[in-house]
């Protein structure tokens, strides 16, 4: 490569000798640290230092709207309060309802769509791209415009439901009713994130080599049998990956739901993150909400460990 040599010489000539020697002298080891250090320092400053601070605050009575009050150590009081509180327990159950049903519908619809797209009909790439659009949008803006669609009198959703079922469109309120609101947020989340599950399932289906099906055909296994003993088991690590990630994301869901229902009516759609936001930024119970934040941290951290294990399993394919 004569060109490269020429460039190297030109670079060497243009570099001041002392700097050139210093740069040339950098060992791979020091370059490695030089390259990693800025990222680690930023994350320490913006993530780890605040985390340690949160742990400290969770043992104190600090309130962010009264910064001059003497800070007293309260021990494990906040943790005991939260873990004995029926309200927080109810928020956890609301979260569980949301997480369970969104994962259920997204996996069901997402896998079915992936299976259909894998039939490779003409134009499938185009339609796949169209289907993917909702998951890239801003959850907050999505929550806001679905609120418009869910309006009881004028909303498109109620109109379409009444068009197909004959129920008068003003007889039910998706966001105002205690029984329907938890399902309204499930509908919107499913609309938005089914493409995510679909895309990962599609990768799973495409990772199954043709020869396995060919071997099954030779053995005269029925299509039904092939689906249950080849397709599903081999796509399962991918499905698990999608389920875990959606589970983690929806466990901490905030933006979309807060704009759709704001946690209401009552506290029927008050998910864990919304309770946390109310305690921290409306009631200014900083100590209490710090303890709550740590509890959520630990749960997410535990789930993230499992997620990375699932990622590595998929990577080996």
């Amino acid at each position: 490569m004569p060109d490269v040599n020429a460039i190297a010489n030109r670079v060497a000539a243009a570099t001041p000798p002392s700097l050139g020697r210093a740069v040339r002298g950098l060992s791979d080891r020091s370059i490695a640290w030089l390259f990693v250090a800025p990222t680690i320092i930023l994350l320490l400053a913006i993530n780890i230092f605040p985390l340690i601070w949160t742990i400290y605050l969770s043992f104190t009575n600090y309130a962010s709207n009264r910064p001059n009050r003497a800070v007293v150590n309260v021990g494990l009081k906040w943790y005991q309060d939260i873990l004995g509180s029926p309200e927080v327990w109810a928020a956890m159950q609301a979260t569980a309802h949301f997480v369970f049903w969104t994962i259920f519908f997204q996996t069901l619809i997402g896998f079915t769509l992936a299976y259909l797209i894998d039939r490779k009909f003409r134009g499938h790439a185009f339609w796949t791209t169209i289907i993917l659009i909702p998951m890239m949008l801003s959850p907050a803006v999505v929550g806001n415009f679905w609120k418009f669609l869910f309006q009881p009198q004028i909303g498109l959703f109620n109109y379409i439901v009444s068009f197909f079922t004959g129920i008068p469109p003003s007889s039910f309120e998706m966001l105002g009713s205690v029984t329907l609101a938890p399902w309204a947020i499930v509908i919107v989340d499913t609309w938005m994130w089914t493409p995510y599950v679909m895309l990962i399932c599609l990768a799973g289906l495409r990772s199954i080599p043709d020869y396995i099906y060919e071997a099954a055909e030779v053995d005269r296994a029925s299509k039904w049998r092939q689906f249950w003993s080849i397709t599903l088991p081999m796509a399962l690590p991918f499905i698990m990956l999608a389920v875990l990630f959606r589970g983690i994301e929806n466990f901490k869901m905030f933006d979309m739901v807060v704009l759709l229902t704001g946690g209401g009516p009552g506290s029927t759609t008050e998910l864990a993150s919304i309770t946390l936001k109310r305690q921290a930024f409306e009631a200014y119970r900083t100590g209490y909400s710090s303890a709550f934040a740590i509890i959520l941290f630990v749960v997410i951290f535990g789930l993230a460990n499992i997620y990375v294990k699932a990622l590595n399993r998929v990577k080996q394919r």
Partner: protein
Amino acid sequence: MSGAVTTAHSVVEPSATSRRIAAFLVILYAVVTMVPLAWIFATAWKTPPDSISYPPKVVFDPSLEGYCNLFTTRTRQTDEYIEALGPPQGACDEVTRKREMVIAGPSNYLPRFVNSLIIAFGSTFLAVSLGVFSAYAFSRFKIPLADDLLFFILSTRMMPPIAVAIPIYLMYREIGLSDSALGMILLYTAVNVSLAVWLLKGFIDEIPREYEEAAMIDGYTRLQAFFKVVLPQAATGIAATAIFCLIFAWNEYAFAVLLTSGEAQTAPPFIPTIIGEGGMDWPAVGAGTTLFLIPIVVFTVLLRKHLLRGITFGAVRK
């Protein structure tokens, strides 16, 4: 049956009928899933009365009122006052006067949109710059505890934003970064750098080491080889990563609503606060939403080949 004629490969090819059924169902889903989006895009072109009419209007006279209301603030005036003003200046003035109002000034939408642009591009630039160095180091060198560091980097992204926001809010208040674009850029950089490192590591892993080694034999230093050989090879990956970071920062709401209130507020917390007389001004909300979402739709189409990588942190590459 033409079994004897079909090739060995066609054994696993789906039949024409099953393909047609699959195509029908997938296209049906795609069309249904686009209805809410199409509806909000259409609402932007309605007048406020049309937007809340029953039954919902599918056919309507397009009006600029939504876009006009999005960009202006208006005050109600008497007929005499409006008549004394002389002829209307431009389309928006005309629409506003029909409602017996005059334009009082620009709204906050444009500054919020510009904030979104500054913060999204600033944090993307920083996150990708930091990320590409770290990703290279993780890809090429033996770093002690590399797996733990990578997990640590990833786990920071998984944290619930509200939980992170509590100490950040206090910290920013102490050091004067509350409601500042710089504070938001640093925060989004920290969140995005984890994605950037993981994604870029995947892209750099795919560049053969032989390229750099050849360059180094020819007299390049390691750093020169990185800048002149690896970076150009990774250009596609860097662009895809940048778009992912951009979309995250563009879409983010939780940090934005808690940590910014005026100066540095981005568009997502602003759009839900657009109200007209007697409730939400849905055409203006629709217009704001349309302008905000169109870039993302375009990016999604551009990114379609890399989406899978992006959402699995580079683990699944097809």
